[in-house]
């Protein structure tokens, strides 16, 4: 009989729990808080059957647009045909992890704010813009010995010594 395309088809491996991590889920999952606008990764926890997203969203990252009692609403991009739609799904918190994709930006915002405040106190104007890496500066090559290589005339007799 044919394969079938049910809701959880082809999820045998992606929804299964990792090796030696089956059974109860760690409690820290339940103690994390999510605010609207946070970036989260959707990663299905196969042992929690409620509030599972569809298999398409497993591995996607989106932003939180809603927070309910036990779940968060996540806005994920999905390509449908020739366009990308922003899909809004609700997922229980066991299937969601805080994403680190935005972490570097937030850190940079913090340090920039601090630098700007310090510069403001001193009365100067600084630019906190990131600059791309430029070409490497010129340098003298050190410790170079010159070896002149010239071609030698072809010696038929010696070269044919091995086999002929």
């Amino acid at each position, binding site marked *: 009989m044919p394969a079938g395309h049910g809701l959880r088809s082809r999820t045998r491996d992606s929804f299964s729990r990792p090796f030696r991590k089956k059974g109860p889920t760690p409690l820290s999952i339940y103690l994390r*808080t999510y605010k609207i606008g946070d970036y989260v990764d959707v990663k299905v926890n196969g042992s929690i059957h409620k509030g599972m997203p569809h298999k398409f969203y497993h591995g996607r990252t989106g932003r939180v647009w809603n927070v309910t009692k036990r779940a*968060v609403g996540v806005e994920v991009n999905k390509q449908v045909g020739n366009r990308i739609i922003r899909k809004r799904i609700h997922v229980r918190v066991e299937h969601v992890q805080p994403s680190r994709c935005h972490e570097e930006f937030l850190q940079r915002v913090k340090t920039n704010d601090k630098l700007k405040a310090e510069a403001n106190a001193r009365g100067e104007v600084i630019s906190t813009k990131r600059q791309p890496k430029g070409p490497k500066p010129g340098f003298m090559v050190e410790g170079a010995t010159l070896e002149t290589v010239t071609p030698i005339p072809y010696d038929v007799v010696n070269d044919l010594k091995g086999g002929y």
Partner: protein
Amino acid sequence: MAFVRAQKSKAYFKRFQVKYKRRREGKTDYRARIRLINQDKNKYNTPKYRYVVRFTNKDIIAQIVSANIAGDLVLAAAYAHELPRYGLKVGLTNYAAAYCTGLLLARRVLKKLEMDDEYEGNSEATGEDYSVEPAESRRPFRTLLDVGLIRTTTGNRVFGALKGALDGGLDIPHSDKRFAGFSKESKQLDAEVHRKHIYGGHIAAYMSTLMEDEPEKYQSHFSEYIKEGLEPEGLEEMYKKVHAAIRADPTAKQSEKQPPKEHKRYNLKKLTYQERKAKLIERLNALNAAAGADDDEDDD
């Protein structure tokens, strides 16, 4: 000795998944813990307090705990071994002592949060089901009972501690089904029986019976009570005094502790990364110096 082939091979151990540490120790019920700790996500960082009651062989521990990823935080704690301070010297793990410990914890928490004037609770312990009424300014302190791993039978001492906390003025969702004195047939709580348990009436009755029937057993079993000079009739009075003393001054007393004695170190102290690198550089320099000296000698 017969040769038995090894039951558990290396492969067995490689695939073996250990349970969580506290489950292996048999101390935490994770199924219950998840349900007690889970806070609504739309309440963000509002703490959810649980009223933890645990009994050891000689002590009762009552704590108000809120969960944290780094580790649970205890807001306030009360122990049965503090009750001698309020006048209860013996019988520190019975139903009445559990009631006193719960009452002590409740008054302590309310005093810490400066709510003890608004929420007096039930000063006269009648054994009836009592729930706190919300006052005008603040809502009552809400917490959830965490019994741990005990079997919740009717008349268990944890429910004595629960009753103590309720009468102390905490808001704990409960039903009277498991209080001592609840009868399954009539499906009602007999407040008189519960009141007797709170004031140690069941212990007084046993003391009287033993005094008449088996005086030697009475001497051995209740020796501490006899030493304190406690008669079966005087138990209720004593517990009333203890309740009053608890309500008068529930603050915890800090015990004076000396800083721990310094012991001689018998093993090497572990070096830091910097120290190890520095040592390596020293060793290399010494080697180079020695090698340099040898080379000079060979050259010569």
